[in-house]
């Protein structure tokens, strides 16, 4: 549909009106107690940001030392657990052998060791 001169005039007018709205934006002012409310928000933000003292332990050199200590303790614990497991396993085997030896009236492991030493 072809635009009429009237349409074009309407378009131009509407554009001018819309653009005029840009230049005639009213000025506003902050509400009452703006500063009080601002300070309340700042305090709220600050209290949310405060770090407990214990958190500082996890920073810098102290953090590295703590991490090393934790790794060392873990390593020692692991070694001790492995040793205990091995000792338990050996004892279990020894007990089994002793039981079989007793059952068939064979010299026990300790006696065999004594005989071997003799």
């Amino acid at each position: 549909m072809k635009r009429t001169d009237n349409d074009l005039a309407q378009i131009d007018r509407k554009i001018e009106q819309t653009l005029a709205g840009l230049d005639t934006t009213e000025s506003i002012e902050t509400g009452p107690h703006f500063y009080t409310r601002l300070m309340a928000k700042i305090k709220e933000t600050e209290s949310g940001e405060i770090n407990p003292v214990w958190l500082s332990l996890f920073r810098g050199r102290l953090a590295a030392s703590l991490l090393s200590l934790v790794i060392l303790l873990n390593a020692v614990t692991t070694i001790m657990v492995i040793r205990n497991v091995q000792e338990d396993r050996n004892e279990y085997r020894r007990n089994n052998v002793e039981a079989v030896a007793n059952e068939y009236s064979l010299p026990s492991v300790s006696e065999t060791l004594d005989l071997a030493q003799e």
Partner: protein
Amino acid sequence: MNEEQLLSDIQEGKSGAFQRLVELYQNQVINICYRFVRDKTDAEDLAQETFIEVYFSINRFRQQSSLGTWIHRIAVSKSLDLLKQYSRLKRGGGSQGTVRLDARAVDIPAPSWTGPDRILEDKESLDILTQALNSLPKKQHVALILSTYDGMTYQEIADTLGTSLSAVESLIYRARENLKKKLRTYYERSVKKS
């Protein structure tokens, strides 16, 4: 009291210094934000956010620009962030009620030509204007918006944008031309529809 003295008082934590700064800039800040978001409540929230950032960053302010320019930049950046959030929400919320001014904008209700004296109180016109502004390149958008605030000189706009006075004039001119083009496209389509 000059700006330098005020800044040094705030950085030294002198009582009342920050309040003086807020009182000095609060109306400029809220009006800058208002021109971007066109909503008083949002503008006040943005002004508060601006001063919160000022409060927490003022010790890092290195005076590479004036204190006012720095505060204006924060206000502009906060306003643009909010506009971005709104445009994301609109995009996520479907096309209902949206006003798009790109070439494929077909989901805009045709404007009513009755009542030619209705200007920008008309929410539809305001929406169109806001949408057209938001679709401008960022620097043109900011320069044009700041130029509509009497409280800011072109030099202050240039400082805020980190550009020259002549660049600001050119940005504002191009922004107005682009805005006209976008509005013409929209209104021509609307006339076709009606």
